């Protein structure tokens, strides 16, 4: 396997991109568009950004991706949390961003009517997925939930403000009659969706979050337990995930 040593440059996964656009999209979230040599991505994959004074890179879902000649534009949406996201917020158009991509497995796309669920910033990968489903003429419906009107990020078919989006899932399953469900949200919502869709026997893809160190599957810092064929084993959210099948996750 000598070819292994001739590192294929197309395979390179570390990029220095340039910020093309950065703007506020809600009371506490921003959109950042990065121009880079990244060649292709899948919906549900993420990038991992090096942030000033941080030992650990920070993962962000890909919210949009467009090829531009030999280069591409990658969009992320980020919510202000702590130091890293405040650092990202401080960046300006033209600043460079060091990121690893594309990371993770991404969503499987079935040719079936889909219900998309996002809570808070979990809308980010759903917007990308929705665009892709539309492109492929796959019927879909995106429902999202936000804590307040100020926090709403646009792009959904239905937006729930206050309360929890979980309370509306049964209703939308009845209305939309989806065959596949996708969800990105905090753990409580993911868990709730997992319970509901299991009852309805719906194929469900859940995008999880865990604190990551290496983001390539080696450190085992981000593992969760899955049960497959009655066997329990560890899977990394960064490499085996972040998307897992409903019904297989053992919630901590």
């Amino acid at each position: 396997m000598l070819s292994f040593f001739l590192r294929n440059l197309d395979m390179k996964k570390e990029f220095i991109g340039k910020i093309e656009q950065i703007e506020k999209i809600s009371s506490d979230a921003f959109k950042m568009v990065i121009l880079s040599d990244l060649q292709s991505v899948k919906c549900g994959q993420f990038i991992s950004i090096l942030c000033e004074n941080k030992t650990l890179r920070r993962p962000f879902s890909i919210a949009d991706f467009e090829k531009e000649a030999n280069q591409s534009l990658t969009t992320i949406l980020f919510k202000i949390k702590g130091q890293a996201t405040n650092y990202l917020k401080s960046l300006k158009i033209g600043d460079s961003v060091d990121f690893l991509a594309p990371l993770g497995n991404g969503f499987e796309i079935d040719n079936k009517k889909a219900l998309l669920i996002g809570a808070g910033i979990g809308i980010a990968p759903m917007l990308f997925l929705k665009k892709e489903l539309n492109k492929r003429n796959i019927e879909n419906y995106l429902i999202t939930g936000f804590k307040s009107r100020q926090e709403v990020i646009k792009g959904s078919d239905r937006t729930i403000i206050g309360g929890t989006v979980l309370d509306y899932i049964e209703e939308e399953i009845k209305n939309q009659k989806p065959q596949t469900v996708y969800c990105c949200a905090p753990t409580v919502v993911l868990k709730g969706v997992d319970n509901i869709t299991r009852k309805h026997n719906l194929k469900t893809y859940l995008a999880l979050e865990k604190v990551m160190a290496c983001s390539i599957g080696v450190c085992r810092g981000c593992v969760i337990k899955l049960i497959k064929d009655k066997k329990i084993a560890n899977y990394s959210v960064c490499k085996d995930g972040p998307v897992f099948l409903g019904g297989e996750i053992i919630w901590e």
Partner: protein
Amino acid sequence: MGIENLKTTLKNEKTGNSLILKTPLIGASGTWGYNVEYQDYVDYKYLGAISTKGITLEERLGNVGERIFEVFGGLINRIGLENVGIEAFISDKLPILKENNIDFLLNIAGNTIEDYEKLALIAQTNNIKALEVNVSCPNVKKGCLEFGLNPESLYFLISKIRKVYEGFLIIKLSPNTQDIKSLATAVESAGADCISAINTLRGLGVKIDYINNKFYKKTVQGGLSGTCIKPVALYMVNQISSAVKIPVMAIGGISKLSDLFEFMAVGASAFQIGTANFSNPSVIEDLAIELSEFMQKNNYKTFDDLKKDIKNG
């Protein structure tokens, strides 16, 4: 020009045992996986070796709950030695290392002396050239740390391993001790060929959130690593290299060229890089190129020449 000038040999003068490294830069255990995981980021020709994830006799799933806690200049981990176990390592991981000609140190950990003996015997049987014995993992309830903190038990353990394993034997020491010199001396007299140090320091991460007039506390106890532990590592490597003649591999917070120089100044013969890979996955390649270029520019033909000059500087 290439990086041939980085080639170096670690040698135990007493036994004649040696380890040839293409470069003195090694991926530290637990941060480099088992074999080719970094191939999208690093050209492996720049890598002296990989130290594998710590391998135990049986497969382990590791700790439940949060495993990573970031702190300023580093992180606390409590992975708990999640690994595939020696059997799967030999059958699934080793062939890939061989196929790709990747030099490696098999890093092992156990609960009992018998565990270590069995693992060492398997390494011997499989003709594994270098063994790194973790006697210093702070993240598991019993086992390795207990051996690693007492000179007598450490001597006993290493003598047992030495009896069954003939290859290059490296002992990885814990910094969580009052007396690193006695540990190092015990390691040397028990017949080990090399000492690597340091493993992670014991640490506690605490996060307090104040939400709706209420405090929420989160704590993560585990091993501290990263740039913040470098001064401790420098101290330990200095102590160790002044106490023993066998070569010392420096570990702890290494991320840039000046770090390599600093560790050489206190007696290090090679370097392991851990946490720095997480922020810069090509750090080892970058360091190899920078080190090699520095040597060419300043007329150092060999790494050993450079080491000598820095040490005497």
